[in-house]
């Protein structure tokens, strides 16, 4: 917001103007930060004209310096966006644990794989999950993580590739005790 609005001299609207900031401070707004991102201290005035190095007329502050950081262009083009930054709504699913008074909800997109997800569940409900193996499910604990898939079936977490899991998981349930044993062992 520039202070470019004209004020009627005699009304002195400025004195009664509502604005953010301590009383007595001046509203004068700084220009958008120079695109060259030089440090604020000892800004060498001679080099201040760095901004002319090929930058387009800058939208505030975010324009980049040509050739900086010094990364070769074939590297820049090589990456997909990181999973944690992918746009779009998260995949929120309810998580229930046998014996817990209320359910929780988590966003599956936040995790990059099973180890992270299981760790998060362990932290959330304060319990430990056993070791996963394809043959025997989760050994070493009374708790077994399961999920309901698109077909309505209750599945053991960890059997299918992660990408397939997050697209087919509708809700999670951490089973406990005898019910868990039935599902977890060599069915």
């Amino acid at each position, binding site marked *: 917001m520039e202070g470019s609005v004209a004020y009627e001299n005699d009304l002195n609207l400025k004195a009664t103007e509502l604005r953010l900031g301590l009383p007595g401070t001046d509203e004068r707004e700084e220009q958008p930060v120079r695109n*060259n*991102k*030089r*440090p604020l*201290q*000892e800004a*060498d005035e*001679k*080099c201040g004209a*760095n901004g*002319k*190095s090929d930058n387009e007329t800058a939208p505030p502050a*975010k324009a*980049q*310096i*040509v*050739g*900086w*950081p*010094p*990364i*070769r*262009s*074939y*590297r*820049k083009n*090589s*990456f*997909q966006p*990181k*999973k944690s930054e992918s746009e779009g709504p998260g995949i929120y699913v309810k998580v229930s644990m046998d014996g817990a008074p209320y359910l929780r909800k988590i966003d599956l997109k936040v995790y*990059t*794989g099973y*180890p992270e997800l299981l760790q998060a569940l362990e932290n959330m409900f304060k319990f430990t999950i056993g070791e996963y193996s*394809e043959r025997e499910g989760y050994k070493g604990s009374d708790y077994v993580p399961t999920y309901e898939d698109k077909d309505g079936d209750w599945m053991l977490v960890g059997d299918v*590739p*992660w*990408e*397939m899991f997050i697209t087919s998981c509708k809700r999670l349930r951490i089973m406990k005790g005898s019910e868990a044993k039935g599902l977890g062992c060599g069915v």
Partner: protein
Amino acid sequence: MESSKLKREKDSQISDELNELRMESSELKKARDSPISDESYRRSSFPDEVLERVISLLNSHRDRSSVSLVCKDWYNMERWSRTHVFIGNCYSVSPEIVAQRFPKIRSVTLKGKPRFSDFNLVPQNWGADVHAWLVVFAAKYPFLEELRLKRMTISDASLEFLASSFPNFKALSLLSCDGFSTNGLAAIATHCKNLTELDIHENDIDDKGGGWLSCFPESFTSLEVLNFANVTSDINFDALERLTGRCKSMRVLKVNRSISLEQLQRLLANAPHLTELGTGSFSQELTPHQYEDLESVFNNCKNIHTLSGLWEVKGLYLPALYPVSTHLTFLNLSYAVLQSDELAKLLVHCPQLRRLWVLDTVDDKGLEAVGSNCPLLEELRVFPADPFDEEIVHGVTEAGFVAVSYGCPRLHYVLYFCRQMTNAAVTTVVQNCPNFTHFRLCIMTPGQPDYLTNEPMDEAFGAVVKTCRKLRRLSVSGYLTDLTFEHIGRYAKNLETLSVAFAGSSDWGMQCVLAGCPKLRKLEIRDCPFGNAALLSGLEKYESMRSLWMSACNVTMNGCRLLAREMPRLNVEVMKEEGSDDDGRADKVYVYRSIAGRRRDAPSSVLTL
């Protein structure tokens, strides 16, 4: 890696022999010149045949250069026996001069554009076109076997010319080049019957489809090295499978992203003797059976010591690599978006690692794992996954750098991109690893001070040059005053390459470097407050250097003109910005020594003064 170490040992043995010969020869000369000469000196103890034999064993071009300076006899013996010529700046000499001096060349390495062209600081049509060289080579070196180009422009027409002019042609390596398309590659594949090596690495290629790979004839079986990792479009997999099947001597295979895991497995089943592998995308959905096949094929590849690729890698499938990991000496994960725990799990299986390249998504924790698992590590490169996003708070910090240094005392090469660093951390790192030869630290925000103390990073780089006496290459970053450059000038006596950006306070900084670093060969500077006084303080120095680059500094056209006038054997080129006035700032200056005079192929935006 081992064979190059052996070569170096052999070279140094030969260097020792040469030194003895050199001393003998100079004593001989002294004896001849002195009026009283002893009988025993009249006969040389080393007949020419022995000398020729010794010289012909020399591989290092630097040793050969030294040899050729001893006397005329040695110069001639050397030039007749040289088979490989290395030209670090294609404009420093002309192809005619090269051909006249060295009649028996079979292998050429040529480098063209200044390194900052990698970062878009050099205009597109700047030059370094290889064609004029090829024409001379076709006439003078019809038996040319190898051509290795870096930062040169090569057109499809040139590639076709190459393919049809040299019947013995064996090895083509293009690194960071431009000007050609996949059609040019097709010409090479079609016509080079004796090709053993095709290494197309990190170039700016006009991609016209993957049909080029299918151009290798069915009768063609000699390929040993095939790297098309950065040639992006889909190739015909059947053609590739047949090619690798019939090329029984293939030892290096680096495929592009279009190759799936399943396809990779089929390729490896046919090529168990590979020593270097670049995988395609490592992320297909595999059934357990397919996964087992993959594991077993890796189990059979006992010779793989270098691994790269791994685009879109799924952490889930990394365990398939464990059979190969135990022998790995070079692991390039710089395309693989891995988290710290995934990297840690993999590194447990890589105890022999000498070189590791990673993305900063592995965080400091991942680097701690490097320190814990890779005691033999000599080289570490950490690349930023999101270099242009300032909102990012992850990445590696000084903590990761220090952690690696504690676990890897043999570290001598580092390239480290980070968003924060401290003087104390760098000082600790070089105390733990005093053998750095290459120290390239990039703090990504220009001019950023020590984030804890807010001091300049002068102390850090001072520690580097004081402690690492073997330092040959240094890239500095962060907020730096002239003090850094005083340190460099005073201590960095073996420094050959220096890169500086957004640093220094005055001309004095650059003057210190030019006056103090006797072995300096390449100096590249951008966005620093160095002006004419600094530029001109290096007048005599530039003739002993390969090149100087200065951009966005305070050098003016008049300063450049003065330099050009005083030093006629230097080419002083100024790249003009559009619309800038002629007598003002010289925005981009490139100075290099040359015995070929000014170049005739400069575009209109480049002024040779």
